[in-house]
Structures are given as C-alpha cells and as structure tokens.
C-alpha cells in the first residue's frame, strides 16, 4: 500500500511530463504526416520560439502576448524554410533531411550570434510560479500550468483537425495528396500552411518548456530526439498515437527516474524497441498495404 501511495506522485508527474512530450511531438507529427518530411530543424525552431519570447519580453511585451506572438514569428521562419524545401519535393527524401539538418545548424548559429551562447531565462509571471502541495509533496506550480497548457493545445489542435474544413484538407493531404490536388485544393498553399502550423507548435512547446529546461542555443536537441521517438512509437501520422505515446514515454521516464534513475533516459528507447519489435507500425499507425 505504501508503495502504491509513493508511486502516485510519480504517476502524476509522468502524465504531466508526457503531455509536454506530446506537445513537442505534435508539430513534428503534423509535418511528417502531411509532407512526409522529417523536419530535423524542429528542435531549432523549438529553441527559436523560446528566444523570440525572451526578446519580446525584453521589449516590455506582456508574457501572454509574447506567448502568442513568438509562435507567429517562428511560423514565418517556418514558411521561409518551406519555400526553400519546395525544390526537394518529389525527390529522394534524403534531400529534405539534409536541408532541414542544414537549417537546424543555421538557426542554432543565428541564435548564438543574436543572443550569445550563454544561458538565458524566460521569466514567467508571478501567478504562474511558486510551489504547491500534491499528496503532501511539493510540486512546482508552473509544471502544472505547463501540462494544462499542453493539454489545451492538444485539444485545440484536435478540434482544428477534426472539426474544421482546413483540418479535413490537412488530413486528406496526409492520406492522399494527389487526390487532394485533383479536387482543386491548392496543395502548395496547404503545405505552406501545415509547415507554418507545425513550426508554430514547435515554438509553443519551446516557450512552455523553456522555464523548466532552461534556454540555451542547443536546447532543441533535447526536444527533437524525444519528438522523433514519440511519433514512431505512436505511429507516423497518428494524432492520438502521438499523444498516447507522449504520455507513455512520460510515465516510463518519470517512474524510472524515481525507482531506477540511471535508466530514466534509456527507458524511452527501451520502450520504443519493445513496442516496435511487436508492432512495427507503432501504437496507432495505419497498416501498410503489405500488412493489410
């Protein structure tokens, strides 16, 4: 009984961490799903979101307004990146990988040039900071708000994808882009929009996680690897797969962090290996033609 009681806060922590992981992965998933491009610059755009927010707050912009504006700025950068990517469409996927890898390096160096290589702080408003008691244990308030924000963005994205015509177009684009084009939908514009949305989500994740992980030019590396792992685990292109996988990864990392801490980072990779061994398409991935 004591063990279970002790386990509870770690479960709660795992779920909240999982929601944050899911938030990081969603933008990544969107771009992979629709454009079949593994955007290796996702981590750098995640970092850029945090830096833009810091810069805006530095210009005396309110935190909440900065929270809304910074992803829009990153979305503009994402759109530029998408324009550069157009020449790679229809070619070997390696071209897209190389281009986004190059973009990741460029963005990271631009961050170093603009903001320096030292640590920065994204200061959150007083109402979001402080501590609270969860089951007799002290827990950072911001962590709770960050998880709630992640939950909110997951819900909003779900509503957007499921309940709006734009969401339907994106899903159709992910399923069969040629058919979408045949139906008269401007696929070029759709891709541009998806890329902007995906990168804006990366920026949102960066802003949410910045006060927890800290802000430094290479912080994106800490995000892109779990994001990649989560979309593979959840099934490439699956919205709920990514959310479920994010929460699973969070729980596994949170619990191993408490009970076998040296395994905490490794545990997510072990989870991936275990799952992919028995279910190669991930949790909610679609069957391939060969499997059907």
């Amino acid at each position, binding site marked *: 009984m004591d063990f279970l009681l002790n386990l509870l806060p770690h479960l709660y922590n795992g779920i909240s961490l999982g929601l944050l992981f899911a938030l990081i992965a969603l933008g990544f998933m969107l771009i992979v799903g629709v454009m079949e491009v593994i955007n290796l610059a996702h981590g750098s755009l995640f970092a850029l979101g945090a830096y833009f927010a810091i810069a805006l707050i530095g210009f005396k912009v309110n935190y909440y307004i900065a929270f809304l504006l910074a992803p829009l700025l990153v979305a503009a950068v994402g759109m530029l990146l998408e324009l550069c990517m157009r020449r790679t469409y229809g070619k070997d996927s390696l071209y897209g990988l190389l281009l986004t890898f190059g973009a990741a390096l460029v963005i990271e160096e631009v961050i170093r040039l603009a903001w320096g290589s030292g640590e920065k702080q994204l200061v959150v408003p007083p109402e979001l900071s402080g501590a609270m008691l969860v089951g007799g244990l*002290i827990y950072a308030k911001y962590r709770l708000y960050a998880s709630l924000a992640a939950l909110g963005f997951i819900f909003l994205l779900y509503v957007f994808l499921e309940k709006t015509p734009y969401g339907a177009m994106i899903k159709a684009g992910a399923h069969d882009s040629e058919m979408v084009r045949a139906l008269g939908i401007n696929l070029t514009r759709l891709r541009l929009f998806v890329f902007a949305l995906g990168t804006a989500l990366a920026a949102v994740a960066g802003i949410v996680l910045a*006060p*927890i992980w800290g802000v430094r030019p*290479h912080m994106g590396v800490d995000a892109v690897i779990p994001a990649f792992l989560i979309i593979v685990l959840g099934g490439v292109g699956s919205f709920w797969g990514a959310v479920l996988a994010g929460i699973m990864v969070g729980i596994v990392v949170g619990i191993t962090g408490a009970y076998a*801490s040296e395994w905490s*980072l490794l545990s997510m990779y072990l989870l991936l290996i275990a799952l992919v061994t028995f279910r190669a398409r991930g949790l909610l991935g679609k069957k391939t033609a060969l499997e059907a």
Partner: protein
Amino acid sequence: MKRNRRKLLQMLAAGSAFYGPWTVNRVWSQAAQKKPLVIGLTMDASGQYGASGTDERLGAMLAIREFNDKGGVLGRRIEALHMDTETTPATGSRVAERMITRNEAAFLVGALHSGVANAISQVAQRYGCVYFNTNSSSPTEAGKDCHRVKFVWDGNGTNFAHAIVKNAIRVNGRNWVLLTNDYVWGHQTSKATRALVEANGGKIVEELMVPQNTRDFTSYLLKLQQIKPNVVAAAVGGDDIKALRQQVVQSKLDKAFAWINNQQDWPDVYGLGPDAVFGVFGTNWYYRLDLPGVKEFVAKYQKTYPGVQIKVPGNVFYNGYVSTRELLRCVEEAGTTNNLAVIKKLEGRKMSAVDRMQTHEAYINAATHQCQQTIYMASYNDKPAEPDDIFRILSSAPPQEVEDKDAIGACKLESYEATPSYEQ
C-alpha cells in the same frame, strides 16, 4: 628613364610596405621566421559542457595572447588551434589524434568532461604529447587514469569533498542522499563523498543517478521529498546542473534540505539569477577574492573580451588561463618544446599564491600530476557589492588539508622510457 625612375619608386614603396612592420617590431619579425608553436585546444563548444568549454578557451587564448605580445615563446609565435570535442569521449580521441598527427600540435590543452579528458590523454600518451586537463575534476584523472604526459589543473571531487563533508555533517545532519551525474566524474566524486561521509559518522541513505543530458528533475525532486534526507550532495555538472538548479527553485525546495554541490563552475551558474545560487559549493577561484592581482586580472578580462556574456571571469576561465600560462613558462624555462624536458619542469613545480591569485601556495604533485591548490567553500551572497557578486566565500582550505591521498596509490605513471619523446 622617366619610366625607370617610377618603377624604382614603386619598388621602394612595395619594399618598405613589406619590410616596414618587421623592422619596427623586430621581435615579431624574428618570431615569424620560425615555425609557429601550435597549441591544440581540445575544448567543448557543444554538448553538456559547451558553455564552460567556450569559457576555458577564452582563458587559454588570453595566456597565448600575452606570450605572443612578448614575441611568442622560444622566438616562435604561438598559434592556437581549436576543435570542438563535443563533450564526447570519441570526439576527444579523434580531435587529439588529428591535432597531433596532422596539425603538429606541440601541446594539447583543455577538458571539462572527465571521460573526454581520459580519452584525449590516452592518445596524447601514445605519442608523448604533453596534455593539460584544465577543468575536468574526476579523482580518476590524477588517480587510476593518470599519465606521464597529463597534468590536471582543477581541484578534483575528493579535494572538494574533503573541504566540505565533515563540517556539513556537523551542521546539517547525518542522513545524506547522493545525486550523481551518471559518468566518471559523478561516480568518482560521489564515491569520494560517500567514503568521507561514512568515515565521519554519516550515512548515505540513497544514491540517485542522473543520466547525462537530463532536463527534467521532477521525479528526483519528488523522490528526495519521500526520502527526507538532511543533506543532498550533488555531483551534477554542465547544463544538467543549470536545469536542476532552476527546477529546485521553481519547486521551492532550495531550503527543504541542505544542498551541497561538490564543485560549482561559474558558467553553470552565471545568468541563472540569484535564487538559483542556493546551497554550499566548492570552487578554486572567485573574481572578488581580496588578493593581489585579482582586480587587475578581472580588468584584463573585461578589456580583452568586452562583448562576452559572462562579464567577469570565473573558475573555468581562470583554470584555462593559469594552466596555459604555466605551460608556456615551462617551455621557456626548459628552452625546448621537448615533452620530457617540459614534463620535468612541471613535476613538483611550486607556484606562489600571489602568482596564482589564490590564498595558499600551489604545487604539482609529482606522483599524480595534479595541481594541489587552495579550495574555497562558497554560498550565495545575500549582500552583493555588484550584480555579478553572487558568491560568498565561506572558507579556504590549504592544499595539504584537502589533498587526495588515495590518488597517490592509484596513479601509476608511465616511466620516462616508456613515454615517446615528442617535439614540435
């Protein structure tokens, strides 16, 4: 005739433009004629210790600049060659190999991560190239992983544990938890802390391993609250300690236990804000030590690097500077770059407190090749004289009091005969 005179004038002008500077500065002209002395800076620019690696590079560069301003060393201009070791041991090996075999580096300087330092030193020993471990602090570096060509300049985990453990048990209590970065420095530092805690009547109730690049410490913080120790002794470094400090402050757990951080590197705490500087920690230098030469050194740093984010030098920069300066002095004294001659100058070398801007005289233990020096204990300064004045120095321990005695038994230096002669 007119054309010839014009040609002559043009030749004179070109000649004076080319030779002019050399005749004005004869020292430079002499140095330029000889092959430059290449010093390989094996320092991280990315990964867990990227920020500290950049800082120690500036320190080494300042020492090199000072010597070049005097005409170089042995009449040779010094060239610094930097390659990013990426906080990765395999990269460290590759960089060391390349610097020695392709770039003809005479000496290698730099390390933050003990795994990287160990990897570099193995390559350096194979060729006989003298290597300075500037800032990595695993006790094994001057213990079982020591080498004839390697010299360790920072205080190590055992030095800092000696300086702090006994008093911390008395003041804070007997039940300790170790928070250990899961690599060689963390392991060895926690091992030394454990031994001292147990020898002084304390008890290690739990050791929590922190994998490198951990960004979320919440599960650790929850676990600590469930354990309820008196003291949390952290051997966590680089970006990991930055994240840990921020999350401890967010959770308001900075006062829930007594926090001890074995060694607190300046770049890992600079810019985090005053709240994040909690607990007691060790360092081997601070920019506001009331000692001769410190103010001038700080002024020199600020004049040389006006645009850097870290506005005042810290321990990592200091180690990069003093070690490189000492290397070049030894080369000058030896009158050669031959490795064995330089090693002999370094072994047992004594360095005055004034020269090193520390409280006590320092020396290089000939049996371990570690620089034994003053170790300071510090905490947050609640009465800062200026915004960067965030440390309050609590005490200073002379090197003899904190020396790592186990290292002497563990270190088996290769003989001179087994060390290849190396000269560039």
